[in-house]
């Protein structure tokens, strides 16, 4: 299985007056064609930054080392035209909050057909295609919808439109950055189900970013657990509960509401979430790890056999 998308020891630093500070420490991960990979972790762990690096949208002034390759091509080496082709044809992104990520003053039809029209498709053909995808994902009154503006739609309906726009370009990979976090719980399930079903039918690969372990395991083939700018464990979604080996993954699993009988206090991961900037020099999780050893504080563990932990390798 050749990798569609491959992160190869991606490190991103941002220069500051006191020297470069890391945003991502070392991300190595591959996504095969048609595969769904979940990227889970706490806020600030670098999940969104990892997704944005695929589109070449790192923060201004930041310096990346290592590589992100799409179909074997290093994204860092693309010229503006190549980058635009990648964004409009190969990779589509679904953002967290549809209210913020869709231009509020233009119509749904304009939004859905914009990229298709730029590719040279006629107005009628683009509308037909966009309407067809909307119909596929269960949106009714198509002619009316295309004329509506974002403020006239509910959050869930608008996120469906965003997903339809992502599908319209027939990408090989969809990056979904917490696509349901801004929605209420009942619409969350519907929207995730639509995304899951459509990408399976079309054989589209998915990088699904979430802080919700249950949700990620439900739609993904593999789960990558991220902490402080580093991927600490990768394992098949079906075996997450049984096979989790990294202390952070175990702590996350214990912190879920379903892990204790009703009425008892939930367990939490001790300490506060860290970003890549304030993580320790050795293992990123050393400061909060319940089973930390002296070796962990000085030496960075390498991701081997799906886990980056000194205690597991030895």
């Amino acid at each position, binding site marked *: 299985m050749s990798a569609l998308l491959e992160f190869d020891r991606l490190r991103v630093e941002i220069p500051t007056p006191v020297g470069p500070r890391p945003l991502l420490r070392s991300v190595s991960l591959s996504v095969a064609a048609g595969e769904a990979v979940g990227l889970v972790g706490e806020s600030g762990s670098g999940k969104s930054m990892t997704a*944005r690096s695929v*589109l070449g*949208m790192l923060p201004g002034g930041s310096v990346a080392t290592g590589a992100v390759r799409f179909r074997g091509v290093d994204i860092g080496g693309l010229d*503006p035209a190549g*980058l*635009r*082709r*990648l*964004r*409009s*044809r190969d990779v*589509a*992104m679904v*953002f967290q*909050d549809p209210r*913020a*990520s*869709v*231009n*509020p*003053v*233009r119509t749904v039809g*304009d939004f859905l057909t*914009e*990229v298709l029209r*730029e590719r040279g498709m006629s107005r009628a053909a683009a509308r037909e295609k966009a309407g067809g995808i909307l119909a596929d994902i269960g949106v009714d009154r198509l002619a009316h919808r295309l004329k509506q*503006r974002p*403020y006239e739609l509910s959050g869930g309906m608008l996120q469906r439109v965003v997903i339809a*726009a992502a599908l319209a*370009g027939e990408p090989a990979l969809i990056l979904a950055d917490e696509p349901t976090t801004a929605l209420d719980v009942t619409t969350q399930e519907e929207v995730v189900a639509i995304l899951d079903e459509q990408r399976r039918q079309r054989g589209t690969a998915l990088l699904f970013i979430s802080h919700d372990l249950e949700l990620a395991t439900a739609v993904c083939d593999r789960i990558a657990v991220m902490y402080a700018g580093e991927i600490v464990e990768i394992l098949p979604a079906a075996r997450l509960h049984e096979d989790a080996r990294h202390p952070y993954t175990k702590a996350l699993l214990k912190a879920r509401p379903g892990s204790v009988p009703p009425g008892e206090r939930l367990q939490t991961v001790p300490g506060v979430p860290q970003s890549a900037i304030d993580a320790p020099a050795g293992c990123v999780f050393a400061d909060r790890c319940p089973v930390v050893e002296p070796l962990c504080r000085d030496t960075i563990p390498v991701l081997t056999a799906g886990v980056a932990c000194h205690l597991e390798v030895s």
Partner: protein
Amino acid sequence: MTGLPWFVGRKLVAMLGTVLVASFVIYGALYLAPGDPAGLLAGGHEMSPAALAAIRAQYHLDDPFLVQYWRWLSGVLTGHLGDSMVVKEPVGSLIGARLVNTVLLVAYAAMLILGLGVLSGILAAVGGKVADAAVTVTTTVLMAAPAFVAAIVLIWIFATKLSWFPVYGSGTGFGDRIHHLTLPAIALSAGYLAYVSRITRAEVRAELTSDHVVAARARGVRRWAVLRKHVLRNAAAPVLAVSGITVAGLFAGTAIAEQAFGVSGLGSLLVQSAARQDLVVVQVLALLLVAAFVLVNMLVDVANAVLDPRLLRAREAG
């Protein structure tokens, strides 16, 4: 009822209401102003009480306030604006002769404000550091310089030194008028132009970093299309709102530029009439300026609602 026609209808009603209230305030304020109109009408001569009483009767000055107001308002509405108390000419012809100059001056200044102000603001926001610094320095100077200072500098450079433009007067015929009005329009618009430029820069920069613009780039939309359809399109509504109020305010601000460049317009007429206590002229002019201000504002509101239909709904909900 929803939609644009309903919105425009409500705006029209509100506009008429505003002008009506303004007419009452204007007439009331000048009624309360110190000075005896009868003495003024007599031309400053000492007159016998009987002669004064005759004048008061002729001009209905002894009627109750509301009766006088109503007589004036109905006169204005039927086109009988009255005669100037000082120069004894019909107010209509006094204004008519000067209206064209002021409208041309305001239109000229408005074009400069909208054209140069908006363009320089966009340039500062997207043109890189050097363009931004140049525009910021220029607009700071323009904002700091009051219209009468700008007028003196412009006359000195372009009229006396370079002789590109006339120093004084209104000109005749369209081309000549525009030639005469160039320096006054620049003097009038400079400060406002800088203000609109700053607002445009701020709005465009805010849109550039907004989530939907980031998302448009992530979809691989062309640079120019992102700028036009997502950045400028969305920045247009707030910029237009500010420019609209600025342009509407120009009607009241023409006095200085007209005085400095000897343009015979409504602003200079207002100042002269107020100085001569020519209440009849001042009343009509003040009402005309309010009406122009409210009308321009209404046009801007409607244009804004077309640009951003959310405004139609926000008003209905509120």
